[in-house]
């Protein structure tokens, strides 16, 4: 190989080497740039990761705050629910023991406290434990002794919480009740403090919150209110019992008195009945002998004697009438009169009575009106007795109504409680108000000019009222002097009405 060739080969090799070197340098520079790029990317990624972690930390912290808030809210909500349940139960308690039976350890667990004591003072002013959660009996006695011995509880027993109680008192409460976190609240009534509510937790529990303080204040208030209510209820209950005893005693006395009255009344009726019966027999003889004498069967009598005998006869008739009335009253009052009830047409009953008295009414120049609605069909009566009521009232009305006056017999257009109300009204002289009250008394007669001239027994209205009452009906009167008088009375439409009136009478005051 000549030198030129060698030089060429060397040149080519050198060229290749230079090219390789250039390529190597280029590649190195290029890779370095990639590496730099990757390093940058890696740094970015790390930064992103760190940012992500920071964001995650923020998220966790926010989540924690939210969780704490929710837990506090849940706790408060649960406590409020528990308190509401207990409050509702204890507010219904009727005695003090019942109040504390209804407060269970569950309530205090729901309120977030592991220890609780409730004590109240009894009538002897001694503190007595009413509820105990987690304290041993032996410890309770010493707690009460220590509590009673403390001056600051005696002088000014306030609300104490481990959050805001002066250190000295706080430490003493912790010592007595063995709970680092606590609330001690007085139970107040209108008369002052009657005890205390203590709740607490031992050393590793959560702190007492303002919410806890509010809830225990509510609970202590509710207990105080319930104690007051229970004591008031007991007082009222005792008074009521005493009153009931008195009422029972009086009722017994009244029942005995009523029994006596009934017996006297019965004896009176029996006496009247017996006397009337005994009187009627000789009267019949008197009347008989008088009739024989008047008829001249024993011989003609002088006119003057006849006149006297006619008076004897008339007075005997009056006396018989009086005795008959007395007998009827006595029979009805004693229940010995047997009523013969049946269904009768209202219209025919009223018209019969009217027919009977029309001549007497017309003769006096008084107008007689009858008003019986078509829809009132039948009444359930003893017709002979019921007619006596109508006749009595119509006779009275005729007696006291001056000429040109009007007497109206009417029946009310409706049936109420199974009874038809009848009325007999007149445009007569009327009855003074004072006399209205005595009108249905035996032998009472209104003192007026007409009565002074017309004889009467004062038994007619009594008898009428007794007859109405024997029909389970009522009778009453309305009157105005110078205007007129209306007598009202009710008669049943059927036997069913009797049951209704019995119930009404039982319920009547």
């Amino acid at each position, binding site marked *: 190989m000549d030198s030129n060739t060698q030089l060429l080969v060397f040149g080519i090799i050198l060229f290749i080497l230079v090219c390789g070197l250039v390529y190597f340098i280029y590649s190195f520079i290029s890779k370095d740039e990639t590496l730099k790029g990757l390093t940058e990317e890696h740094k970015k990624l790390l930064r992103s*990761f*760190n940012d*992500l*972690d920071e*964001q*995650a*930390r923020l*998220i*966790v*912290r926010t*989540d*924690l*705050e939210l*969780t*704490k808030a*929710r*837990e506090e809210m*849940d706790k408060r*909500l*649960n406590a409020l629910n528990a308190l509401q349940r207990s409050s509702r139960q204890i507010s219904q308690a009727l005695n003090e023991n019942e109040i504390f039976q209804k407060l*269970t*350890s*569950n309530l205090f*667990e729901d309120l977030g406290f592991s220890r609780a004591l409730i004590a109240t003072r009894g009538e002897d002013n001694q503190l007595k434990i009413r509820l105990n959660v987690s304290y041993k009996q032996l410890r309770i006695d010493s707690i009460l002794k220590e509590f009673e011995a403390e001056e600051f509880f005696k002088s000014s027993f306030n609300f104490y919480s481990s959050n805001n109680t002066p250190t000295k008192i706080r430490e003493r409460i912790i010592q007595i009740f063995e709970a680092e976190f606590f609330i001690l609240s007085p139970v107040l009534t209108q008369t002052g403090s009657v005890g205390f509510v203590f709740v607490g937790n031992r050393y*590793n529990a959560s702190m007492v919150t303002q919410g806890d303080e509010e809830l225990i204040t509510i609970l202590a208030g509710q207990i105080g209110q319930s104690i007051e209510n229970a004591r008031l209820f007991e007082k009222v209950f005792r008074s009521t019992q005493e009153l009931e005893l008195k009422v029972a005693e009086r009722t017994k006395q009244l029942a005995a008195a009523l029994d006596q009255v009934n017996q006297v009344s019965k004896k009176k009726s029996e006496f009247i009945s017996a006397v009337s019966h005994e009187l009627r027999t000789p009267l019949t003889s008197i009347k008989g002998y008088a009739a024989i004498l008047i008829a001249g069967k024993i011989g003609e009598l002088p006119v003057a004697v006849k006149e006297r005998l006619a008076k004897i006869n008339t007075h005997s008739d009056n006396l018989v009438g009086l005795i008959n009335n007395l007998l009827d009253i006595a029979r009805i009052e004693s229940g010995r009169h047997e009523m013969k009830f049946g269904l009768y047409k209202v219209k025919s009953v009223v018209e019969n009575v009217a027919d009977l008295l029309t001549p007497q009414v017309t003769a006096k120049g008084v107008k007689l009106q009858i008003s019986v609605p078509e829809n009132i069909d039948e009444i359930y009566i003893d017709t002979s007795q019921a007619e006596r009521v109508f006749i009595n009232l119509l006779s009275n009305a005729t007696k006291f109504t001056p000429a040109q006056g009007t007497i109206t017999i009417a029946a009310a257009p409706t049936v109420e409680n199974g009874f038809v109300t009848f009325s007999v009204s007149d445009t007569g002289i009327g009855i003074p108000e004072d006399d209205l009250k005595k009108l249905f008394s035996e032998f009472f007669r209104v003192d007026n000019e007409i009565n002074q001239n017309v004889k009467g027994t004062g038994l007619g209205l009594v008898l009428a009222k007794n007859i109405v009452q024997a029909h389970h009906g009522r009778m009453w009167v309305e009157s105005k002097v110078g205007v007129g008088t209306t007598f009202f009375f009710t008669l049943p439409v059927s036997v069913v009405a009797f049951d209704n009136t019995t119930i009404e009478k039982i319920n009547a005051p």
Partner: protein
Amino acid sequence: MATHIAIGFHQHPDPQKAALQACNQIRNQLHRLDTDFIMVFSSHEYATAPVIEVITRSLRPKRLVGSTTGGILLANGATNRGIALLAINSDEMIFGISAIDGLDNLDIHNVGFDLARLAAYDLNHAHREIFFTLSQGIEKNGSAFIRGAKETLGLAFPVIGAISSDDFNYKNLAQFYQDQVLHQAALGVLIGGSFHLGIGSTHGFKPLGKPRTVTKVEGYIIRTIDNKPAVDLYKYFLGDAANLKTNVMNSYAALYPLGVYLEETRHYLLRNIIDILEDGSIVCPEGITEGEEVHLMISNNESCILSAIEAARLAKASLGDRPPKLILVFESLARHKILGNTAYNQIQAIRDTIGGSTPFIGMCSYGEIGPFGNIKSVKNVYLHNENILIIAVA
């Protein structure tokens, strides 16, 4: 062929009176003097031997199991106090039960194995449908327990259950087995016979922030995350707002579990922290494997309720057109805490999804054993935290 289901509940302050009232409710519904199977869920105040005596005398159950709980779920709401009874009389469902106590000193894998074996022996029936457990003490090695049970019953056999709970104190836990009140015990119930079962299991939590790596683990103690004391993760996110030192499960940390992504199921498995050690290490049920990525997880009312509806839908779908006879729910107590007073809305949503008039009962637990999703996923069963497990029986 018939199955009669009754539910009784009472919260009289006197536990025995409450038990008697609940029993009376059951008797009024079943109209029988004895019962085939009773499951008891009670708050810790009611977990006493006299209470169990009242139940066994009153209802004469052939088999009784139960557990304390920090929350009882009923058709008309949730409560943290009282005693609830589920009673089943059936010639379609056959029950085998078992119990092993003193779990502190036992190998949990063996406990799972033996518990299932004893329940199978008690069942004495070829057709088995589901095994569930109510336990206290298996939570630190739940996967070993599940493995043990599956070794007895078969890898694809549905194993579900719940860890007993109380009022976040961990001091009042108990299990009820026949006429006994046990502690630190695992109860097994193997159900066989002719019935249909639907399961839905979800949690509704989402990952938050960047993933962290678990850098040092000793057993179920997580020493460091991203080479820092594990508790620093919670300090970073929660600050001083959450008091982590006292009663961890009742602290706000319980609302934010750790989530481990599982490739096999494509779900996040949640882990509560159940303790914090002096050096800043945290304790999780079963722990988390070293090198695993973890996320802080978050949820809210809406997400919880939506996930419950999803679980209910999955359970119902497994039943097809068959009308459900019972809805049984195991829900995490910490998750229940997120719901607060809206827990009723979740119950209502579940009932509306499955069937409004179906008898409903459930308990809140410290851990739930079950699959992700529906009954078809029973091959992969885990001990969950913050989960809701819905079982529908038809």
